[in-house]
């Protein structure tokens, strides 16, 4: 790892003042530290967000819950305030030691195309709180490792609306524990359905609109369409594009059946 200056931020204002240029934010660091060890980045300074008090809590609201950006996967998995589907998703990330350190803000800011959290954000229609303002999940995720975050901006929290039904099904890539394909399905009290897919597309997390349309009329695993087109799906040694496309349909059915 190339050396860098270490800056411990104690507030969001503190953090954003220290960011910009070649400075980079670090939250739990469970992705960033291995990346820096591989010398895939050379920040001039790392601004540590893990001690920012205003980003550390889980706040239950009226019909929603807000999770601070610095809240760990473990804390989300143990919380009685977050939707059960989100707690279960958090409990399935990495391994216990990683969950004790990794954070929701870091995951959402990084937008790894195989990460779990982006599918929960998109699959529930979450609001992403950033230091530059609030962004709807539909507008926030803009492709592989690409988000609406501007330079020097950080994710300060995520607000999830409470669904009537929701479930996340993950086909685990056994070496990394990332999703080979993960599907988050939800239905709100007004009947609105979302199906968000991670791990599959070269464009990162996306909504599978054909399945949403079918499920809006009849929320049943029987109506989930067959595999979508394999065009634009990720192909690697763990699975071909066609295999991933097939898994999208399978995991969607499982998620609907488990709701």
């Amino acid at each position, binding site marked *: 790892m190339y050396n860098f200056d270490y800056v411990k931020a104690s507030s969001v204002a503190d953090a954003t003042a220290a960011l910009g240029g070649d400075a980079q934010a670090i939250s739990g*660091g469970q992705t960033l530290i291995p990346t820096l060890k591989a010398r895939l980045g050379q920040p001039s300074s790392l601004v540590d967000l893990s001690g920012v008090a205003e980003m550390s809590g889980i706040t239950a609201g009226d019909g929603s819950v807000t999770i601070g950006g610095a809240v760990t996967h473990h804390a989300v998995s143990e919380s009685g305030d977050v939707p059960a589907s989100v707690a279960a998703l958090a409990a399935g990330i990495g391994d216990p030691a990683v969950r004790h350190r990794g954070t929701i803000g870091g995951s959402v800011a990084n937008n790894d195309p195989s990460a779990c959290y982006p599918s929960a954000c998109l699959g529930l229609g979450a609001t992403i709180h950033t230091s530059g303002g609030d962004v709807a999940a539909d507008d926030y995720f803009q492709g592989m490792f690409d988000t609406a975050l501007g330079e020097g901006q950080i994710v300060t929290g995520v607000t999830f609306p409470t669904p009537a039904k929701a479930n996340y099904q993950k086909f685990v890539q056994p070496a990394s524990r990332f999703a080979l394909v993960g599907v988050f399905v939800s239905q709100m009290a007004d009947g609105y359905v979302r199906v968000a897919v991670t791990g599959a597309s070269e464009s990162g997390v996306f909504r599978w609109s054909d399945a949403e349309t079918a499920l809006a009329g009849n929320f049943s695993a029987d109506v989930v369409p067959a595999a979508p087109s394999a065009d634009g799906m990720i192909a690697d040694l763990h699975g071909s594009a066609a295999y991933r496309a097939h898994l999208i349909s399978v995991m969607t059915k499982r998620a609907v059946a488990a709701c």
Partner: protein
Amino acid sequence: MPTVSMTVNGKSVSGEVEGRTLLVQFLRDHLSLTGTHVGCDTGQCGACVVNVNGDSMKSCNMLAASADGAEVKTIEGMANDDGSLGVIQQAFQDNHGLQCGFCTPGMVMTADDLLARNPNPSEVEIREYLEGNLCRCTGYHNIVKSIQAASAAMTAGE
């Protein structure tokens, strides 16, 4: 260079580190606590697991500066006060829970974390909790037996 201070195995320590110094490097190279091992150095294998403020964490995947002010427990803190093996360590010896021993510090620290949260884990719960700890010798069976034995011994000792 930042100065970090923390409590390691009950003792207050401090030292000057670089921004990039990992917690495991601070423990091993600055404090000479070489019981914590670096296996893969990519956050996969769990040989470097230590306890930070009550939670197991991979010390190769954490900056020393981020642990400033923390309460850290390492494998060196697992023995009894008289220097004899602690309950979990003794259970690993009794049940052949190690062969080459390289992964053992991480296994013991993860077991300690598990038993603090769940004093009577099932075999499935033990195996799930060891998801981030790799062992290439034992096939895990005797590690699981060791943790079951430690659980029984701790429960009997209460």
